[in-house]
């Protein structure tokens, strides 16, 4: 982070005082140790667990590293638990959720912020209103809606659509996207209009090229949250074959070999972990951006 403080509570003068200096010198390594154990510990334990024989995990839990590293366990877990299949299911769900969240947020915010139809205020307030009622409280009704869509009829239960489409109805994305579009200079739209650009070109050639930062923030939040999703996919995707990894793992844990299950858990940690490490700056900034939990 480049926005490091020039000073915080403790000033340079304080830092020269021996009592403060020594307290900091002792506290900071301890803090680093604590944070490293809490942050890295469980992930490293998963790595160890995935490479250990199950017996050893039970007999000697304090062991730091397996006596006999079982690389083969990863391959057999992949094969026997069909982890690749579940991973693909997760991937399909994540990509769809990302697409629909972005589609609704960019198109909707563009209409509300740039085109500003007269009825825009109503739509905007109706979107805002859903923020008051957390999605979990309409879980049951949502489930029945998915089984029988209002107006058109038909069921999308047990298909990826049941996860994709409800993900799109995410008010927060629309809000931050609209907030960003509101901050773009309206003179640009005028200029584009003089040049004869229609709304479609305005969207793709003026607004979108300037929206890189917000699109990447919303994308990252969408992908990370879709990857974590558990309750909703568990409810709507009933056939075990189509379940994502997060839903399949607790089920597999009941019957499968434990070290293979841990290999599956490791597999489910790695993609979001890599994503976080690569886009760390965006995500950390995104939290400042949105003020919301990831």
């Amino acid at each position, binding site marked *: 982070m480049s926005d490091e403080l020039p000073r915080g509570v403790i000033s340079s003068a304080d830092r020269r005082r021996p009592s403060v200096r020594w307290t900091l010198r002792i506290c900071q390594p301890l803090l*680093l140790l604590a944070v490293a154990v809490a942050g890295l510990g469980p992930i490293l334990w998963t790595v160890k667990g995935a490479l250990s024989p199950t017996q050893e995990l039970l007999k000697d839990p304090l062991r730091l590293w397996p006596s006999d590293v079982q690389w083969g366990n990863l391959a057999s877990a992949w094969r026997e638990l069909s982890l690749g299949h579940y991973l693909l299911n997760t991937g399909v769900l994540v990509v769809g959720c990302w697409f629909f969240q972005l589609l609704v947020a960019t198109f909707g915010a563009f209409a509300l912020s740039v085109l*500003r139809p007269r009825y825009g205020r109503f739509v905007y307030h109706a979107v805002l209103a859903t923020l008051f009622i957390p999605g979990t409280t309409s879980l049951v009704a949502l489930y029945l809606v998915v089984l029988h869509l209002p107006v058109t009829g038909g069921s999308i239960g047990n298909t990826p659509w049941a996860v994709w489409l409800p993900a799109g109805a995410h008010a927060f994305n629309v809000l931050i996207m609209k907030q960003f579009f509101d901050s773009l200079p309206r003179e640009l739209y005028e200029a584009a209009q003089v040049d004869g650009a229609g709304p479609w070109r305005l969207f793709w050639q003026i607004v979108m090229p300037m929206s890189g930062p917000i699109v990447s923030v919303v994308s990252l939040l969408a992908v990370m949250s879709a990857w974590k999703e558990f309750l909703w996919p568990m409810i709507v995707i009933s056939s075990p074959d189509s379940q994502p990894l997060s839903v399949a793992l607790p089920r597999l844990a009941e019957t499968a070999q434990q070290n293979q299950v841990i290999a599956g858990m490791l597999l489910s940690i790695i993609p979001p972990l890599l994503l976080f490490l690569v886009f760390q700056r965006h995500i950390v900034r995104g939290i400042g951006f949105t003020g919301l939990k990831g």
Partner: protein
Amino acid sequence: MTTVQLPRGAPPGRLGARRPDAAPRARLRTLRARYGNGFAALLFLVPLLVLFGWFAWWPIGKSVILSFQQTNLVDAPTWVGLDNFRFLFHDALLWTTLKNTAWFVALALVIGFPVPIMLAMLVSELRRLGGVFRVLIYLPVVVPPVVALMLWRWFYDPDFGLFNQVLDYVGLGPYPWLQSTASAMPSLVLAATWANAGSTTLIYLAALSGVPTELYEAAELDGASIWRRIWHVTLPQLRGVILVMLLLQIIGTFQVFTEPFILTDGGPEDSTVSILLLIYRYAFLDGDYGTAAALSVLLAAALAVLSAIYLRLTRKWSTS
């Protein structure tokens, strides 16, 4: 004074409330003349209207209707008046559940709430490795909750769990963790705190970097000690964020589900059944959608009040 960093000085919170002066209003009119007969906008709004209609607005209304109905997904639903609520209030498990959830919320406030504040204050005083600390602190948030909880299930195991083994090493325990009615809930809170503290800490860090350093300098010149500076400068400056985080945490912990579902399945002796877990059981184990909806409506009403306070607060601060 908020933490929220927004692009190019857009007013946070007051979305769309940019009060256009005369010139932009004229401009808006010309834009409207060009695009704003509303039709083009309507086309752009189709995805939003369809998806919110189906999956946000309709289910909210449907929840209320469902709570007065009995339905089994096969026959047409029948109206049953207040029967669902009556059944709900006569279910002894409901009162256990409410008590459990309140206990979880309270414990999460006592155990979990101060952690991110203290972490952020410590990390913001670092002169080196700030980035490393931020990454390490955020790591638990990256782990999918289900996986994290399956890990904690290993750690909590009374016989070969990591925690009891480590405690045994220093001559403590064994503790029953998830196996006793007294310690099950605190164990859930511990796991939840570990999983969630990271993102809140980063929000506090962003807030801390917004505290004007002159305030500290002035306090220092007045001879305020480090502790007094924290008490009289830092905490008052963070007051807004702390209040918002408090509300968000209460709203979030009221909806606790995955922790008891994975770690205890509501046990031992129903001591960790949460409201959402009960809704889940009514609906998806008993097939009693009416009662599940009735409880959902009650939960939604309680949360809507909290959310309204939250939105009011964030709005007020962003404009002041």
